[in-house]
């Protein structure tokens, strides 16, 4: 069966950008399976209006918006909240384990953010979008993005700090961000 021009362009886009978009989904969902599901849902929704996205030349922004919208909608629908404990079952001093530990702490801190707050944090600090672009993606005002970004950073800092305070008493309490930097330097 002959494929239409729209399908060809769509498949080209999926091949080229699916890895980056999957990473975005992973940061939003915290789970590889959910991330794949979110990406597939968003892409399938976008395919219906792909001509419009092509005509505007904003394919990636279009898919990104669909991902964020699907993610926020799922967050609203979700009945059972995902509960992640801040305490790891085991802690170790090995370098490799530290790196894993750092990622896990950040992952858990992100999981505690509200869907829109989390989306703003990821868009601003991972995707590197400006406040205007983030507002456009989320469909809200720039002021709202600023507010959500501030709230997200505050919560993350608090969560990372609380992880620090929840650490064993024999470990020196220090700035978690500094600890992250040290872990990366190692």
């Amino acid at each position, binding site marked *: 069966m002959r494929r239409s021009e729209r399908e060809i362009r769509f498949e080209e886009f999926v091949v080229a950008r699916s890895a980056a978009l999957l990473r975005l989904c*992973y940061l939003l969902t915290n789970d590889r399976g959910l991330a794949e599901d979110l990406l597939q849902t968003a892409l399938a929704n976008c395919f219906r209006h792909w001509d419009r996205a092509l005509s505007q030349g904003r394919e990636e922004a279009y898919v990104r918006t669909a991902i964020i919208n699907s993610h926020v909608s799922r967050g609203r629908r979700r009945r059972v909240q995902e509960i992640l404990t801040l305490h790891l079952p085991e802690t170790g001093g090995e370098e490799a384990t530290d790196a894993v530990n*750092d990622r896990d702490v950040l992952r858990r801190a992100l999981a505690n953010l509200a869907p829109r707050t989390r989306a703003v944090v990821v868009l601003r600090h991972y995707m590197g979008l400006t406040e205007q672009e983030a507002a456009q993606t989320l469909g809200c005002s720039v002021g709202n993005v600023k507010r959500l970004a501030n709230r997200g950073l505050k919560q993350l800092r608090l969560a990372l700090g609380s992880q620090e305070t929840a650490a064993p008493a024999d470990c020196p309490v220090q700035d978690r961000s500094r600890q992250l930097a040290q872990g990366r330097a190692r």
Partner: protein
Amino acid sequence: MKAESERFAEELRYGLVELAAGSGPPPADLQARVRARVVASRRRRTGVLAGCAAVCVGAALTFGVTRGGGTGSGQQAQPAAQAPPAPAVTGAPAAPAPAGPPSASPAGELPDSLAQLWNLAAGTTHTDVRVLHRDTLDGRSILLVQGRQPDGQTRVALLSAALNQGNRPTGAGTYVLLDRAARGGPSVPVAVTFLAKPTGTRTIVVLPTGCTGQLRLTQQPGGERIDWKTDFTGELVLNAPVLSSGQAVAVSCEAASGASTSVLRFTGSARTGEGSMVSLLTGD
């Protein structure tokens, strides 16, 4: 303070990049999965649309039944069930089919037995037989039908059919009230007039297919004012009959292809029953 905040944001960015890197590559069959989602979504939408359409048709039929019983001569409402398919008449010449049924919901296909009765009464066979309008009068079902003769001429007829226990028209006791040639073919409106003394009079103008625009009554019979309205089925309903040979009604139809005007004329005969009268108007 600001430097600290910037440093935290920078560390956060690195942390997010590291975290995202753990997601791994996309699945190899992502394209196929997305395609399956698209197909499933399309199927679901189609199902929803079909469901909505079924609900709308059901509601329209129910409303039509209620309304038909109320505006007629106080008789039983018509059944909402669809009629069985029209008969396949053999030996008919291959001619282009007339336009489809009008947008009126009472329209449909004529039951096999009634089509054969019409063929017997007319002494010929009719192809592409369709019911343009159904109504109830004096406890009988009045069917405005359209068909094509072997010579290509379009005919319209009014059948009076008895109703069975299920309120469906039956062949037993059915006869042809009026049978006329539709000179304008199937693409012009056809009208049927009901004069039922207890409930007043009305004229139903059945529109041709594609006449989706607003209808206007551009000429009033006898110079008298006639109130009219567009029925829920898309038919034009006049609250007065057109019964004398000197009277005609011009109906303009604003369709997508442009406006057209048809003059509907009373063809000079009407059938009277018990306290009622039925006439047929065909267009030029």
